[in-house]
């Protein structure tokens, strides 16, 4: 009998070792919050996507190392990310976001290009809760696509990009105060790029509002290589200020041509997206004196810290676009922790709605340069500085914060 009991005990012990434990209920499994980045990772705009991804990885690593995000029931979840390539192509952007929406990603940060953001926001549900609108119900929080006014396309679209009209209005007003003797402005724009084009109109309006006479705008295309005709017209017009709304490749081409033809305006103003290291790498000496309003500069301890870590450990650059990724992830963390997100497979749709509603309620947050105000149209009003190209690097010319 004793032997039988001993055998039974042994059998039980063996069974305990061999039989797998009963499945853990889904709720008790380690939960994750899934945030997708979408940006250009191929093609000539690839640099923007690489920087956004580097900042996303850095920010999420920091948050996860600090314990992740707190969910509605008090458990802590790690953030999991992916980064999808939209190739600065509208169809591609829509395709990758539809795929992410069909999976269990809760929110998207991106895209890079305004020509992707505009149609992408168009496929989102226009008004929240509109049963007759079958658009995607998926929150998107843009970091880079900067063309003014895009978030109004859908109540699921949010942006944290510099507000260019505010920045350029301030810049031209400030230039007028500092240089009252300057009267005229000539402009140049790469007319086949959505952001450059819209920004030229912003610059034009801002210059006129500040009391400058705008002599006209010369145009070229994104992949043009020769600018002698356009610069020749500036040479003849002799404006006090030349405002160039173009990205680094053609910006550098025009600056070189200006040097060749001896066109020396008293001041040079550039496009927000050109306040980057790309411009310095392409034509630092020619860009000397170029003034650009920008939503990022390493002028606060936190901005300096983030820029340094991203550059050394994540091989990216923090600029006015990618800096927003850091801010967006922190805002999302705050929203997730305060809006009842559960991060369960069964609550994906509800969680997306909670994040959307939470984002809509945010009125301000701490950004890398200071307080960022959120506007009713789901856009940001961000602090900015006026940067100037000096000795092939960027320096702060004026800090209005």
């Amino acid at each position, binding site marked *: 009998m004793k032997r039988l009991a001993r055998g039974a005990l042994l059998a039980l012990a063996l069974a305990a070792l061999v039989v797998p434990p009963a499945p853990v209920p889904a709720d008790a499994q380690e939960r994750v919050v899934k945030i997708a980045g979408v940006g250009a990772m191929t093609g000539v705009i690839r640099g923007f996507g690489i920087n956004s991804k580097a900042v996303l990885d850095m920010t999420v690593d920091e948050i996860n190392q600090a314990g992740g995000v707190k969910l509605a029931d008090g458990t802590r979840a790690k953030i999991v990310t992916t980064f999808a390539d939209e190739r600065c192509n509208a169809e591609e952007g829509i395709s990758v976001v539809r795929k992410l929406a069909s999976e269990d990603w809760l929110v998207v940060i991106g895209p890079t290009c305004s020509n992707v953001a505009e149609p992408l926001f168009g496929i989102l549900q226009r008004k929240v809760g509109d049963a007759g609108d079958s658009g995607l119900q998926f929150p998107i929080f843009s970091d880079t696509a900067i063309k003014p006014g895009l978030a109004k396309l859908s109540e699921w679209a949010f942006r944290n990009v510099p507000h260019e009209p505010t920045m350029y209005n301030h810049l031209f007003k400030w230039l007028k105060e500092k240089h009252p003797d300057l009267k005229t402005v000539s402009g140049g724009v790469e007319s086949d790029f959505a952001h450059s084009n819209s920004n030229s109109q912003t610059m034009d309006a801002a210059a006129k509002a500040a009391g400058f006479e705008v002599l006209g705008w010369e145009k070229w295309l994104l992949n043009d290589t020769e600018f002698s005709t356009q610069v020749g017209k500036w040479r003849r017009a002799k404006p006090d200020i030349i405002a160039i709304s173009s990205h680094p490749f053609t910006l550098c081409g025009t600056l070189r041509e200006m040097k060749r033809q001896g066109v020396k305006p008293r001041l040079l103003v550039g496009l927000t997206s050109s306040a980057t290291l790309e411009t310095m790498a*392409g034509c630092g000496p020619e860009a000397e004196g170029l003034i650009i309003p920008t939503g990022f500069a390493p002028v606060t301890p936190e901005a300096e810290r983030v820029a340094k870590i991203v550059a050394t450990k994540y091989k990216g650059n923090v600029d006015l676009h990618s800096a927003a990724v850091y801010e967006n992830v922190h805002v999302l963390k705050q929203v997730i922790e305060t809006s009842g997100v559960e991060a369960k497979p069964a609550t994906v749709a509800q969680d997306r709605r909670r994040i959307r509603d939470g984002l809509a309620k945010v009125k301000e947050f701490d950004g890398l340069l200071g307080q960022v105000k959120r506007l009713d149209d789901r856009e940001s009003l961000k602090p900015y500085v006026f940067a100037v190209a000096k000795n092939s690097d960027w320096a702060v010319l004026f800090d209005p914060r």
Partner: protein
Amino acid sequence: MSDLLLDVVQQVLNGFLFGSSYALIGIGFTMIFGVMDKLNLGFGVTALAGAYSGLLVFHLTRGPFVLVFLTAVVSAGLIGLVIELTCFRWMPRDYPLAPLMATMGMLFFIDEVLAHATHGRPMAFPAPMGELMMDLGPWLLRGDLGFMFLVSLAVMGGLWALVYRTRLGLATRAVSQQPVAAQLCGIGLRRVNAAVFVITGMVGGVAGALIGSAVGNLSPLLSLPLTVKGLVTAVLGGLGSIPGAIVAGLLLGIVEYEALYFFGIGYRDMITYLLLFAFLVFRPGGLLGRGAPH
């Protein structure tokens, strides 16, 4: 002299000099077509990749422009050979479209490799002439464009000598005119084709390095314009005609500059393609090409 006349002449001057870059690219397209009767859409990106190779050597050695230039020429020649192997020799002969599509694939493949290697960022390219400008009375002459024009002339002269004064040139012309007869005479078709791809690749390398130095930057953005302008030049000049490509490149440069001056950027390319369309309808053989039936 009125400002208008001054500007018009200045545009002619600029267009003529810048057109030499179109001529060099056009020569590459037209030579390959002349010999193989096929288009190599990867030629423009070959020129660009050669220039990037030169830039790589520059970053590694900080060497003089001559070294950058020679690296661009040699590497573009090698890339040309790779394209000949992968997009033509290994392609099935029963599918005439296969090489065309393969070279299109090669165009985007190399372009993307360049974008990945550089993150798509423009990179400063050494410019031996700097921002030199020469005064020609009331007109300005860009030093780098003048330099490009002179080098282009030298390359064109060299090509002419190669085609008309060497055994390889004789073999190339024979293959171009009667490939079967040329083979029966003992000319190695594969060897001639490979040589043509290497030589045109080297011409592309010259063009890439000169365009890089004139633009001052390299960017993957350049590959499509080089391809399109090269093709337009080759068609306007007459596919297969080297002198035609030279004349058409210079003409195209002038037309573009004048169109830009008078009508603005929105019409510049429109006028270029209208010109192409007019040629295809009224003179399909191009300026100096073989006559084609209407």
